[in-house]
């Protein structure tokens, strides 16, 4: 059961600042011995209702614009489960402000998937993230045990409730073609590859590469979890002249071109070869 729950996607609530977290940890340390020594974990989980014990609260469609029930959906941290119109559990989430999260789902998710919600809020105003996580796991396990499956919204790949992570925008060398450069383009390129650890000059944008070779390199980098930036050499508005200038700068005639640590590593064939041989990870660790 734990392994099943562990493979599901967990929405990340906003974390407290380090100083505040440290302060809270100290407070928690002081607080628990005054209650029941050694009972922190059961107490934390016990503080939340079971999924089956929580009462469903209707979620009016946004178009009707009635406010969400203030008492039933307080702006407090907790765990919640959203049900569709047929009464099927669609998503279990945690939040520092359950009311705000449900309100957000109501705005973005189709009304038939977001018809009612069950909520259990924490006793503390700022519970540790682990407390919320444990509550989430408890609700997930309870649901899986009774139905044999996870809520569809919590299955990896389903972005209905938690949107796909947004890709970094492509970098641009200039604000636009109308802007007259005060420094040579070569200098802008040099600065760019040295200020960013990994830079891929590609044909097209990162989200829509215009050639198979560029797409392959982007795919390899993303598969390796590399933190990289992209520059679209076909963007004549913002990167005018880059395509030819870069060939001279790098002494490399084709695209894509991958720079790591300010130095050219190569094009698609070299990157593909390194990936096949398992050499890429070491490259990015330097």
């Amino acid at each position, binding site marked *: 059961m734990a392994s099943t729950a562990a493979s599901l996607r967990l929405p990340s609530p906003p974390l407290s600042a380090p100083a505040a977290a440290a302060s809270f940890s100290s407070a928690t340390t002081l607080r628990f011995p005054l209650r029941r020594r050694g009972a922190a974990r059961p107490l934390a989980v016990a503080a939340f209702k079971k999924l089956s014990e929580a009462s469903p609260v209707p979620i009016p469609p946004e178009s009707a614009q009635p406010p969400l029930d203030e008492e039933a959906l307080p702006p407090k941290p907790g765990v919640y489960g959203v049900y569709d119109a047929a009464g099927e559990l669609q998503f279990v989430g945690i939040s520092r402000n359950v009311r705000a999260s449900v309100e957000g789902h109501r705005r973005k998710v189709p009304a038939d998937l977001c018809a009612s919600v069950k909520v259990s809020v924490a006793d503390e105003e700022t519970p540790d993230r682990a407390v919320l996580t444990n509550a989430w796991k408890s609700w997930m396990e309870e649901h899986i045990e009774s139905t044999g499956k996870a809520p569809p919204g919590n299955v990896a790949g389903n972005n209905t409730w938690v949107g796909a992570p947004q890709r970094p925008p492509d970098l641009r060398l200039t604000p636009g073609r109308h802007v007259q450069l005060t420094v040579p383009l070569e200098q802008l390129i040099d600065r760019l590859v040295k200020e960013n650890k990994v830079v891929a000059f590609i044909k097209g944008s990162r989200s829509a590469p215009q050639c198979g*070779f560029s797409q392959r390199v982007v795919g390899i980098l993303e598969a390796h979890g590399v933190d990289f930036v992209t520059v679209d050499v076909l963007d004549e508005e913002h990167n005018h002249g880059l395509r030819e200038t870069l060939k001279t700068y790098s002494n490399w005639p084709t695209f894509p071109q991958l720079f790591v640590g300010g130095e050219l590593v190569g*094009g698609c*064939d*070299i990157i593909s070869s390194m990936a096949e041989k398992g050499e890429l990870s070491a490259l990015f660790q330097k």
Partner: protein
Amino acid sequence: MGVTKEDVEAAITSALSPSHLVVTDTSGGCGASYEIEVVSEKFEGKRLLERHRMVNTALAPHMAEIHAVSIKKALTPAQAQPQPEPAADKPQA
């Protein structure tokens, strides 16, 4: 008339004196495209990036007419040799 497979072969042969060269025409609707496998002593002591640069340099006169070049192999003769099979463990007498 655009660059031909023979042009590519001639350019690489002239520059690198390969002991083994395979040029495959993979041209499609986008224009002239080639896959290249080269074995040359001139790659000795050179890292992969430099080897690819050497091939690109050989093709520089034709690059404007080539849509895509894919260098699948750039090996020294020693690297191109088949590796011997590991000896099977002999049973103890």
